[in-house]
């Protein structure tokens, strides 16, 4: 099977990761602009970071046979440095039309401050203007209210939910986000977000319509193989191949292709031999796993 990881911060990852990802069947990835751990203090640091997402990092990825896309935006955490955030907002129009940019994101709330609210709204308007999908980061703390508020604001601005991915959902937020018509993404991330056994249960309960699995792997303890591992775990647990394909490939392709910058033929050039290797890959072995001890489980 082929996979798309629609949320992964490769800037923080190594070449070992790229190789393992390709071997596991990942053919395309989306790298949302985010914060780098160390807060930036100059607009130039954002500029160079954005340039690397549309330049160097997408080239680096291509060297491993993985098609690289990104999203452009000011993340919620750094939106709180208002003078800097204003300068970043001036930079963004220079980047939103680059050819591997598939959305405005990840934007939304962290602490849910006034500044975060201001730049979330400004970027929603930017996305509308340039006709790009939106990737929304939902807060770790006060998750449920933050998620609902994000959707309220999007609706206030008249955004079509089919143009929006709400990310980092959990069992508590899932139903409402789906009911309101949004693409509903889950981050499989050890310790803090979702484990993939829980993910399996979500898909069992809600099906595969508009549900998206991603890794959000970054500089923290995270797993760049979360998507293929979850896919295999779903198969082990009896979820249909079609549902796995939708949640781990097709749905992400569908929503982000609305940007006009992402299509399946983009990665047809890459050799598919390697993509098929994952069946024999030890990381993902486990066609007959013991209950609860599969290599494919991302514990949470």
């Amino acid at each position: 099977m082929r996979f798309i990881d629609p949320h992964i911060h490769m800037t923080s990852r190594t070449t070992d990761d790229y190789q393992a990802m390709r071997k596991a069947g990942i053919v395309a990835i989306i790298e949302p602009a985010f914060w780098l751990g160390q807060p930036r203090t100059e607009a130039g640091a954002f500029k160079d970071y954005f340039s690397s997402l549309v330049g160097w990092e997408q080239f680096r990825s291509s060297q491993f046979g993985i098609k690289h896309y990104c999203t452009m935006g000011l993340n919620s955490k750094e939106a709180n440095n208002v003078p800097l955030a204003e300068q970043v907002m001036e930079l963004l129009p220079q980047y939103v039309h680059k050819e591997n940019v598939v959305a405005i994101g990840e934007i939304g709330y962290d602490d849910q401050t006034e500044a975060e609210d201001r730049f979330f709204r400004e970027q929603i308007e930017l996305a509308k203007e340039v006709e790009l999908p939106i990737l929304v980061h939902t807060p770790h703390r006060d998750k449920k209210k933050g998620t609902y508020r994000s959707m309220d604001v999007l609706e206030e601005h008249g955004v079509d939910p089919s143009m929006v991915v709400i990310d980092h959902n959990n069992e508590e937020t899932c139903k409402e986000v789906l009911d309101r018509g949004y693409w509903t993404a889950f981050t499989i991330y050890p310790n803090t977000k979702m484990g993939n056994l829980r993910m399996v249960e979500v898909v069992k309960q809600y099906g595969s319509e508009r549900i998206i699995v991603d890794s959000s792997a970054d500089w923290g303890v995270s797993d760049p193989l979360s998507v293929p591992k979850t896919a295999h775990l779903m198969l082990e647990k009896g979820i249909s191949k079609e549902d796995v394909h939708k949640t781990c490939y097709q749905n992400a392709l569908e929503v982000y292709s609305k940007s006009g910058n992402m299509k399946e033929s983009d990665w047809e050039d890459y050799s598919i031999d390697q993509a098929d290797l994952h069946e024999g890959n030890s990381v993902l072995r486990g066609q007959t796993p013991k209950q609860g001890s599969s290599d494919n489980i991302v514990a949470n």
Partner: protein
Amino acid sequence: MTNTSEYLHQFISIQLSPQANEWFEKKYAEVQSSTTSRAFFLAFGMTPKKTGTEKLQVDKNSLSELLKTYPGFNSNYWTIDQLCRVGLMSAISTEYNHQWITQLFSTADMNEQVALYKGLFFLENAKDFTEQAIEGVRTNMQPVFDAVALNNPFPKNYFSEGAWNQVVLKAIFMNRPIYRIVGLEERNNESLTSTLIDFAHERWVAGRQVVPELWRLAKERLDSDLLTEIIEKFETFDSLEQEAIALMIQETELAEAKDWAAQNNITTNKSWDELGQALENQN
């Protein structure tokens, strides 16, 4: 407006569909009359979406015209969006073009960088962009490097010897097809060939292959000692490497090399360009 930019403009309009051409004409006029960079940045970014990214189709007459303007031009390595982007670059008044284009370089994605580097030579004040083109050679992105180094007359016309030598050395390091470097033989120099011979020895010591095209440039360095080394290793060379040696010897005056080649039937009927193509196809 120079003849070059007018010619480029006309050539582009033949290449585009009526719909794309209408868009291009409008943007071209906007950029031409602008005193701020905004229209240029937006049009440049939008170009592939409006024109498509098909490979350029060029008839013989147009090609010979283009070659006069831009030695080394090869439509196989150009797409329609690249050419349109270059058209937009050439529409900017020279009063502003250095500032705007330099600014765009600093935020350009990979394919934008490729188009920018390919286009510099078409500009009336191309020389003003020499430092930028040298910066392009420092990239680690192969398509960007190729845009400066291959089928582009810019380095030949504007690079100092030191900068030129970096182009050739880096192309060899990156295993790029150096027969596509414009001015390869005209700009060959002693400093470069000396470095190339050092490099060949480095490769041999490490048990690695020497890029066969290297001998095209280093052939003047062939002497008795080098010939002895080559003869020792000759059996371990692959066929294109052997042909490169044969070609080098054909073009040398060194009698003992000619004798050795004659005795051992070391020949080739390829030219250097054909050898370069064969290598490129193999890679």
